[in-house]
């Protein structure tokens, strides 16, 4: 396997972007990434695009062809990758494997989702397709409902509190203030979270990530090309990918995302490091409880300690392990297919020292991207 570097990044603003189509968003991110990498369209050899459901969100499938066509990458191979909300992270991994194998030397990895063209009801329905339709959704399960059941059991077993959950949202909103691409630039307090509308006990509206439009793209290159083209490449030093039961009820332990544990193990082994070596991490906080589970399952604290670990300030910028310096899914926004790629961009900006106002001086960074309620997990480790 050859070494692979990230040599360019580009993202759109996240939010309700009524004036932009899925194509506009994807092309904007891709062009920005190529400009950042200082390469021409003709240098790109292959595209990997992560999108959860063009079909349900904008009635458009065959996204692979659309991406290469409108980005001006004529006739090159283009692959659309789908793993629900982990589509972007998995696209990165598939492109990594491609370059590492020696097949191609330069790839563009894109992630895009256009979610606000359809109504809230249809969005929730589309997102619910990431859960089991026959055995969860039919019986009344919604996505907030599934994560609420994880939260309820976590609180029962480990005495995690609603305030501790809220603290994840408060921190992520604070971090997003310094991220110009974030959907929200609004400081919130623990009380704001606790007083927001109850969605599914114990999760309230401010425990949930928003519905967003947005795209993100990175340029990957082989070692030789990276050294030719880039002064400050960021290296992918570990890549992990694992699956678990599609339905939450079929998991061994409801409060552990085993896919996260397994994917992290692969990435740590490949990078020859452990959790203590990570300088900052972007985790998949689609709900506040998901951030608590993630920091436990990635090994930053023991199972059950995530709430207290957060309350003690360990996950703040300046703390032991800064979590979601970008604002996370909660405040940066969650255009599902774009999320894994956007997390990667935050890791790259941190390692380059370009995360203005939120720099952590990290030497090693990590991203963690989840599909559904934990049926897929993708973890990557990056270094300077």
């Amino acid at each position, binding site marked *: 396997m050859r070494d692979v570097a990230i040599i360019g990044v580009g993202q759109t603003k996240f939010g309700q972007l009524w004036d932009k189509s899925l194509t506009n968003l994807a092309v904007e991110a891709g062009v920005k990434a190529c400009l950042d990498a200082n390469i021409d369209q003709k240098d790109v050899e292959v595209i990997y695009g992560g999108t959860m459901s063009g079909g349900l969100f904008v009635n458009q499938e065959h996204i692979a062809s659309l991406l290469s066509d409108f980005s001006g990458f004529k006739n090159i191979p283009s692959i659309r990758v789908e793993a629900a909300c982990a589509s972007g992270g998995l696209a990165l991994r598939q492109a990594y494997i491609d370059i590492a194998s020696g097949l191609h030397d330069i790839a563009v990895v894109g992630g895009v989702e256009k979610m606000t063209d359809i109504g*809230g*009801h249809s969005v929730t329905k589309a997102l619910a397709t990431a859960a089991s339709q026959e*055995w969860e959704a039919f019986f*009344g399960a919604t996505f907030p*409902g599934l994560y609420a059941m994880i939260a309820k059991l976590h609180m029962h077993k480990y005495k995690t509190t609603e305030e501790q959950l809220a603290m994840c949202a408060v921190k992520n909103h604070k971090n997003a203030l310094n991220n110009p691409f974030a959907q929200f630039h609004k400081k919130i307090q623990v009380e704001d979270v606790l007083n927001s509308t109850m969605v599914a006990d114990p999760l309230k509206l401010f425990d949930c990530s928003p519905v967003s439009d947005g795209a993100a793209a990175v340029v990957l290159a082989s070692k030789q090309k990276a050294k030719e083209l880039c002064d400050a490449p960021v290296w992918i030093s570990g890549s992990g990918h694992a699956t678990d039961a599609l339905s939450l*009820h079929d998991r061994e332990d409801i409060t552990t995302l085993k896919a996260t544990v397994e994917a992290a193990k692969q990435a740590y082994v490949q990078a020859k490091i452990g959790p203590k070596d990570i300088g900052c991490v972007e985790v998949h906080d689609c709900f506040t409880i998901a951030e608590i589970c993630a920091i436990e399952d990635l090994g930053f604290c023991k199972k059950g300690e995530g709430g207290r670990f957060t309350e003690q300030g360990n996950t703040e910028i300046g703390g032991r392990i800064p979590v979601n310096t970008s604002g996370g899914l909660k405040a940066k926004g969650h255009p599902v297919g774009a999320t894994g790629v956007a997390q990667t961009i935050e890791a790259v900006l941190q390692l380059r020292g370009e995360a203005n106002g939120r720099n952590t001086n990290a030497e090693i960074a990590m991203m963690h991207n989840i599909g559904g309620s934990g049926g897929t997990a993708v973890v990557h480790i990056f270094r300077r």
Partner: protein
Amino acid sequence: MTVSKFWRNIPQYYNLIGKKCPECNSYYFPPRDVCSQCGNHKLEEHKFDGRGEIVTFTIIRTPLMDPEGEVIDIHAQTIPYILAIVKLEEGPKLTAEIVDCEIDEVKIGKEVGAVFRKIVEKGPHGVIQYGYKFKLVR
């Protein structure tokens, strides 16, 4: 859900018919065709009697709505409703509503039993769809 998909699920939805692996004695509900424990693909039918306990639960408070604020959730008539993961006596877990009780009565660890109820009043094809829900054992 289409009519054929609905009819296909009747044994499971109406009578909790799942699978059992004769090789390693693993039980499956929802049913599956290959044993996750030993790989055996000749699983036998098993009718679960529906006794179990609550592993975790939530109260679904916010129905799905369209942009004009009109409620269109197929489960909306029953909001707020109690959704739980129930562990059956034989071992498998499933997701279902808990009914016939006050919200305050539901606790993790409480014993429950399956009941047969209407799940959806009006499906996309105008059929009433039935299935299992659970109630507390008193």
